[in-house]
Every structure is written in structure tokens, then in C-alpha cells.
């Protein structure tokens, strides 16, 4: 299971990458492995304001539908439209081409509430 050091994580298995005033969000390698083949992704609308913890997207594998939560508060500025036709990018490249959406950060300090790679790995291993 890959857990890149430079990212931050939510216990609900989203990863967050800081890029200036915005963050990119996806689901972790652990999460995609647990889900199995991803076959359908429902993404939020660009421009929507979301609060930390809001359910904003759905990732469906063959067997189950999994809710994705906003790890931080802000405005959705971009979504990964490629997932509509190639949802398997989430399995193949969870930290790269399989990203889900970008959020313009409203409150930098929320990033401090997220887990680092070690803490996330520990949290995830307790689940499996």
C-alpha cells in the first residue's frame, strides 16, 4: 500500500495535496484496493461551496458505492472529468491521474487537522 509522505490524509481515506491556495483531493491506494475495480464516479459541480465533512462525491466499485467527503472547507474549482469515461484511473493511479477534485482553501488551519502518512497508515491498518 502506497502512502506518499508529502500528502495529508483523512481517516475516511481521502488524500489531500497542497498546491498554493488550493488542494487536490483523491482516494488513497488503501481505499481503491479495498473497493476493487472502480466502475463509476459521481463528481461534484465546479463552483459549489463545500464544508469540511460534507459528502461531495461517490466512488462505486462493482460491489459497493462509497461516499467521498470534503476534507477541507472551500469552493470546488475543478473536477477530474476523465473519470467519467475511465473511472479505473482511480485503481491504476490513485495519487495521480485518478484525482477527484480541487478545492480552493478557505481556512489553511484545517490542513493541520489531517493525518500525516504514518498516522493514516496506522488508522487504515486498524480497519483492515
Amino acid at each position, binding site marked *: 500500500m502506497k502512502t506518499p509522505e508529502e500528502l495529508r490524509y483523512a481517516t475516511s481515506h481521502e488524500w489531500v495535496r497542497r498546491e498554493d491556495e488550493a488542494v487536490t483531493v483523491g482516494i488513497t491506494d488503501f481505499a481503491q484496493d479495498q473497493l476493487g475495480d472502480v466502475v*463509476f464516479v*459521481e463528481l461534484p459541480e465546479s463552483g459549489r461551496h463545500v464544508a469540511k465533512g460534507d459528502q461531495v462525491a461517490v466512488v*462505486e466499485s*462493482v*460491489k459497493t*458505492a462509497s461516499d467521498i467527503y470534503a476534507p477541507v472547507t472551500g469552493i470546488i474549482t475543478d473536477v477530474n472529468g476523465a473519470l467519467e469515461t475511465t473511472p479505473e484511473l482511480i485503481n491504476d493511479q490513485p495519487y495521480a491521474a485518478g484525482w477527484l477534485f480541487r478545492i480552493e482553501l478557505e481556512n489553511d488551519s484545517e490542513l493541520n487537522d489531517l493525518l500525516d502518512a504514518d498516522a493514516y497508515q496506522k488508522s487504515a491498518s486498524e480497519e483492515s
Partner: protein
Amino acid sequence: MVSAMKRTPLFETHEELGGRMVEFAGYAMPLHYQTGINQEHLAVRQGVGLFDVSHMGEIRVIGPDATSFLQYATLNDPERLRLGRGQYSMLPNDHGGLIDDLFVYRDGEQDYLVVANAANTGAVLRHLQDLVKGYDCHVIDESDSVALLALQGPGAPMLLGQLLDVDLTQIKRNATLDVTLSGIPARLSRTGYTGEDGFEVFLRPTDAVAVWNMFVQGGATPCGLGARDTLRLEAGFPLYGHELTETSNPLCTPFAWVVKDKEFYGRAAMWAPECRRVLVGVRLEGRGIPRQGYRVLDANGVAVGEVTSGALSPLTRDGIGFAWVDSDLSATGTALAVEIRGQPVAARVAKPPFFGA
């Protein structure tokens, strides 16, 4: 916990192959291998897939009254079976529903093997043992002495043909043949649960690993329960606990053909139902995956039914499934919607199978 579950003879093999093991009907079974459900599904549609279905139950019914007993206990007609043939059948309860759906093989004039779903084997056994009183025949659980593999896909006859000196064209659909695979005795049955040509292979448990490996070396892709489910859905086959249940009347489903007009256990409760709702296939026209429990809506947004199971067809990428719908909306082609996370997604009543010509 995996360790507390029952295991088939192939448990270690599944683990060695990287199977994602899950609990199913009390057994530790592979949901999929590292290949993933979609690739396993496509392997069966385009080549050959191999499933461990040893968790299924095998119950022998044998004795002078075996035929008349199964004629009463099951819904299809065992008298129509020639020796060495099998038929899809169902076990009715006394209130218009089913205890299980079954495959019934006629091994001798008065000798039958009943194959039941793993989760229901205990209930089927108890029911048959209760019902058999007064008949001169025996009901015997042979589940632990049988391992069962399913070799499925258009490439299955060629793969098997390379291991045998037998002309496989002589095995018709639902027919069986006893063979020897490199010295291992096996019974082949030309049937399956995928909508493809293929064979179910009955073995002694101690031979299961050797035959499994023989098939894998011959080019079969190991497939788990996930692909088994998407394949049967695409093919339009029911799954007990979803389309068929203790309370759903099979005469209100596309599988009513199984039920023969004869004296059978529970007939009074089952026969000539009103069918306020009817089980149909549904295909989504919008994006999404119908799943069990989702509501079906009419054009005005009124709830007119409920999904029993669904998937995204790995072949066509359409959302497909089965649903109970009000009988006046059950004609093939009827426009409906499936409510997915609060949103109606356009759908139509469709006649399975959901793939192919």
C-alpha cells in the same frame, strides 16, 4: 474473521493466488483475485474462467419413491429428466415463496443429486428430510464429499478437450458425463451460471487442487464471486435472496416457466397469483448503477417498485438489474426511473439477457 469460517478444499490455493477472501454463506471465498472483477468477467465472456463453487450443497435423494417425492417437493418435472441429465428447479415453501432454487440431476431411475445454494443447504436438507416421511426414499447430505469447479466461457470445450480423450460434442446442455482427468475421476455437467458454454466439474475434495491447477495451466483465469454475480446478472439469471425469496412468488417472475401445473407442496398458496408486482429486467439509460433496495419510479416520480440486484455491465457499461414493478408497468420497453441517491435516473424495462445478440 476468515479463520472462523468454513473452507473449501481450495482455500490455500485462493490465498496463494492473491484472492480477496470474504465471508459468503459461512465460507471463506474469493470475491476476486488480483486481476479484478471486470477482467475476470471478460475472461469468461471471451476465453475461459474458473470458479470454485465447492461451497454449494449436494443432497442425494435415492430410493424407490425418489421420483414421486421430488415431483411433489420441487416445482420442475423430474420425470422429464433422462438419465444423466439435469434441470433447473425450485423448492417451494407453504406460503407461496421459495426455500431455494436448485439444480436437480437424475443419476439413476430413482437416484437424484440436488445441488443447493450454500446459504440454504441446511434449510433444504431439513425441509426435504421432513417432507420425505411417508416416501420410500432417503435424503442424504453429500456436501462434504463433493468439490465443485465451474469452467466457463467459449474456450471451455477446447481447454477441456485437450485434457480428455472424449468427444465433448456428445455432452449436450445440462447433460453429464463421467470422465478421467489424468487419472482423476470427475463428473462433467455442461451447465453454468454465466450465460456462456461451460462445464461444472464434480470431484472428490482431495482432487480439487490438482484439477484446479490443471485448468489454470490450460489457460483458465481464476474468477471470484464478484464476477460470478456480474456474469449471472448480465445473463439474466436470478440469485436466491434477491430475485427469489421466501416471500416472492416465482409465478410473478421471468422464471415462472420452472413451475409445472401439477400437485406440489405449497401449491394452494402459490398457484394462480394476482401478481400486483412483477419481476422484470431493467436497463438504465442514464449513468449509474442500480443496487438492491433502490426505488423504481414512474414518469410522475411515484414509487412503483424496488431493485432486487444490479450492477454495471462490464461488457456494455450500462447499469442493469432486476426489479419488482407494478404489473401495469412491466411490459418490455416501459420507461421508468431508478432513484439513485435521491435522483431519478432514466431506465427501461428490458428482457434479459443484457448482452449478446
